[in-house]
């Protein structure tokens, strides 16, 4: 399955993805929809937990951002913006404190799709049932991207993770708002095109900084892409070519900027101090590289 094929499929785009899924798995469309509805429920539960708590993550670098934003006054007069950002961070802060989330497509980028899609739906007062088909489309877009590119920070930098999640979210939001397959795929392509080059440089190697705030930014990025595509703006470079270009940039990216914590933000004096502090804590907890558990 390519993005080109998806773009030219009969509307709605999710219907075509669902037909492909059924053929591949031998499952009934109802079974796939029911499972997707369950996962949307899990996403919503993680948002609700994340918005209510300020419990810190393993390192203490994050944990209060989602609630902080959600409780703050809406000074910009942009409730959609604040909602999307808060939802996205709520999920990723849950993730950082070892809470229960839905990988989409990875755990580090898990906030982008629920932030954008559930955020827009709640803003417009749409039910979760309306999100099932757009979410199936999101999965289809992710699958098409993964055919040409490894979706992990280690293989392709952050662009591969957050770029994919933003592209998936952009297509889903576009379909939710009535966009035809062509607009959905162009939304994905626009989101992807404007993420190329983003490196993966997590502080201390933890999925916290910049990952949590990055999900807030890219959930908004996805909504922006949907807005452009719904106004019939298109990606000048065809969608599949954009994915290929991103994959090439991933290959050209030095290993220091691919989830090794050996470059960028991870190597700042503050980043290095966090690494040193956490290593010290681990050594205090047990001999390095070895944990002995007593017999019960």
């Amino acid at each position: 399955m390519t993005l080109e094929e998806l773009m030219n499929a009969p509307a709605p785009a999710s219907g075509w993805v669902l037909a492909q899924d059924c053929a591949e798995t031998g499952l009934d469309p109802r079974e796939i929809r029911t499972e997707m509805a369950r996962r949307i429920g899990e996403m919503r539960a993680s948002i609700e937990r994340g918005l209510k708590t300020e419990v810190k993550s393993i390192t203490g670098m994050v944990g209060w951002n989602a609630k902080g934003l959600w409780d703050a006054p809406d000074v910009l007069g942009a409730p959609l913006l604040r909602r999307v950002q808060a939802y996205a961070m709520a999920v990723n802060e849950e993730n950082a404190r070892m809470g229960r989330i839905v990988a989409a497509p990875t755990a580090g980028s898990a906030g982008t799709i629920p932030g954008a899609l559930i955020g827009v739906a709640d803003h417009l007062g749409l039910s979760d049932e309306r999100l099932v088909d757009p979410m199936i489309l999101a999965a289809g877009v992710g699958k098409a991207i993964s055919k040409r590119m490894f979706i992990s920070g280690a293989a392709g930098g952050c662009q591969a993770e957050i770029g994919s999640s933003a592209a998936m979210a952009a297509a889903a939001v576009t379909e939710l708002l009535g966009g035809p397959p062509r607009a959905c795929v162009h939304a994905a392509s626009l989101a992807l095109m404007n993420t190329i080059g983003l490196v993966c440089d997590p502080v201390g190697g933890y999925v916290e900084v910049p990952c949590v705030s990055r999900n807030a930014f890219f959930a908004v990025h996805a909504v922006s892409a949907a807005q452009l595509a719904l106004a019939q703006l298109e990606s000048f470079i065809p969608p599949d070519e954009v994915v290929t270009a991103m994959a090439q940039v991933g290959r050209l990216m030095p290993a220091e900027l691919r989830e090794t914590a050996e470059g960028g933000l991870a190597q700042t004096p503050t980043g290095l101090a966090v690494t040193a502090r956490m290593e010290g804590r681990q050594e205090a907890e047990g001999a390095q590289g070895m944990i002995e558990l007593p017999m019960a």
Partner: protein
Amino acid sequence: MIGPVMIGPSSSHTAGACRLGLVAHHLLGEAPRRAVIGLHASFAKTGRGHGTHLALVAGLLGFLPDDPRLPQAFLEAEAAGLKVEFRDVDLGDVHPNTAHIDLHGETEQVTVQGSSTGGGVIAVTQVQGLGVNFSGSNPTVLLRYTDAVGMIARIATTIAADGVNIAALTCTREMRGGQALLATELDAPLSPQALAFFNHWPDTNWVRLLPKLMDG
């Protein structure tokens, strides 16, 4: 691509690691008592920050990647009488997220080596020291037997007679006439009768049915 539902923070270092532990759990087939887990490259280096150690132990206990007990897996292991030891190991030219698990029960023992390749997806590459290649996205039957003429045909015939389709199959042996290991991924689980039938053959040493661990 939407999923798995999991305990954070990393699909490759947490959910995938848990699934590798689950493979060993199912293949052992009894309560685990002692495990030695070798962690290679990225699993050894950045695993702790991602809860890899906890996730592996959770898997050994039979917890799924979305089990809320995952962050307390060490305490759960203690309560269950499972003793775990971690070692940093160099497994050679393998995926950076690779673990080697040596798991013992009261009477059974199993070794499993596998990699977490991203998004919670795993690739099991070694069982009982012999090469295999399966992902756990289908029910998988593993058979260890003494290499002999016609064994693969008999196994395939038994699976066919059970009305089950083979999706993929790998078979390796240590030497001609030595121990062989066959792993078949199936489109549906095999009946207990078919499994019992395998166990009936004099050349069969060990049979396990690994349930489907994930979608796709």
